[in-house]
């Protein structure tokens, strides 16, 4: 029963992403354009760029994820669909899991696909590429899950979520720091499994707690 429901929700979430590809394309475009801007801005200074490539890429990933997650529940809320989930004896938890997975499949996929281009555009030495991929793989689900808590909290609060960024960012900074330091270490040929391990710990933590927090937050939003 639950697994059938999960499949249905996953299909719906993917269908929605397909119907309004904006939700995915927007962050992807944002990511690419951000890269372009930095590349233009740092013009002619490939060394400087290479040194900061890791941090630039990860900042853009964070921002792109925030942008895309912001509208994760908004449509459902405004259309009154969120109410249905709650009225129908709460399969909401399953729906939230499915939605997170769908976003991660698509958005994580986008980041992974774009990563090599990002690395090239910013002159990231190839020694650091595996670290970049790994941090994206382990880090991005945490980012999405935490950002989704913020999106859920702000769904009822008028438009746009006043505090999404403020609420969520403090929790994301560790992900950023560990990722960037792992990549920078790899760049210099230093060991970096420690940072990756920390990313794994953060991932377990967020994945086990975030869905509950999201459901709670949505419930508050609907009663608003």
């Amino acid at each position, binding site marked *: 029963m639950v697994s059938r429901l999960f499949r249905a929700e996953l299909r719906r979430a993917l269908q929605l992403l397909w119907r309004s*590809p*904006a939700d995915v*394309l927007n962050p992807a*475009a944002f990511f690419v*354009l951000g890269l*372009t801007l930095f*590349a*233009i801005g740092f*013009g*002619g200074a*490939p060394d400087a760029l290479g040194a900061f490539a890791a941090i630039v890429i990860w900042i853009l990933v964070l921002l792109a994820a925030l942008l895309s997650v912001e509208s994760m529940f908004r449509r459902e809320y405004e259309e009154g669909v969120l109410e249905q989930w709650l009225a129908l004896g709460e399969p909401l938890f399953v729906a939230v899991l499915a939605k997170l997975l769908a976003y991660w499949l698509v958005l994580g996929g986008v980041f992974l696909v774009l990563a090599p281009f990002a690395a090239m555009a910013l002159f990231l030495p190839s020694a650091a590429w595996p670290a970049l991929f790994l941090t994206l793989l382990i880090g991005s689900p945490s980012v999405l899950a935490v950002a989704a808590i913020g999106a859920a909290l702000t769904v009822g609060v008028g438009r746009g979520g006043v505090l999404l960024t403020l609420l969520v960012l403090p929790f994301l900074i560790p992900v950023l720091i560990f990722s960037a330091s792992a990549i920078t270490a790899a760049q210099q040929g230093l060991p970096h499994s420690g940072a990756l391990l920390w990313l794994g710990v953060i991932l377990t933590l967020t994945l086990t707690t975030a869905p509950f927090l999201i459901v709670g937050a949505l419930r508050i939003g609907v009663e608003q």
Partner: protein
Amino acid sequence: MWSAIKRLWHKLGSPRWFFQLTERWELVLGLAALVLLTWGTVWGLAFAPPDYQQGNSFRIIYLHVPAAIVAQSAYMLIGVAGVVLLVWRMKLADIALKAAIPFGMTMTALALATGAIWGKPTWGAWWVWDARTTSMLVLLFLYFGLIALRQAFTQPEQAARACAVLAIVGLINIPIIKYSVEWWLTLHQTSTFTLTEKPAMPPSMYLPLLLNVLGMYCLFGTFMVGRMRLEILRREEQTRWVQERLAITAPSKAATA
């Protein structure tokens, strides 16, 4: 005189008239493109003298420049079509606008790619951020934007008008591409062909280039007309004249099958 122009203008608004007018164009333009491109390319690659500074690597010019020029022309056509669509509500304009996008985008990508390939031996880097390369990249983004914007709308009519607005705004980029090399000091070459001066290259280098540019325009024309005709058929599917046409061609298809 004036009324004749007005009549022509009215006719131009009719997709059906355009469809009948261009019955043979695809073939003619396609053949011209084939001849010109083969001639120009063979001459340029095999017979033109090597450059005294760059040796043979300069030969990529025979792809780079035609692609770059046609990419911009296609965009200008798109912008003009946008104006016509918004001012006169001419359906054909939207059909043209839509038809020019894929070829223009491909040419932009080709110009960027060949530029990057050429940049490696001459500038020592695949990519350098200067005004021309940047504005050309912007052109590529504009093409992306046009495609994305159209598919974001559910109603074709609104999509067409929105694309027209974007296309017109994007026109500002064309002079930037064109004059960026003169306004800012950049690494990139300045113009070879101008209307007022003789090119600095020897004829054996620039004549094949000219042939290729012309050929590329013909190729653009071929694609453009073909896509427009297809789009007209698709949009006017319900009308009598299309039904009749399809009724004429359908049995012959059945006969060959």
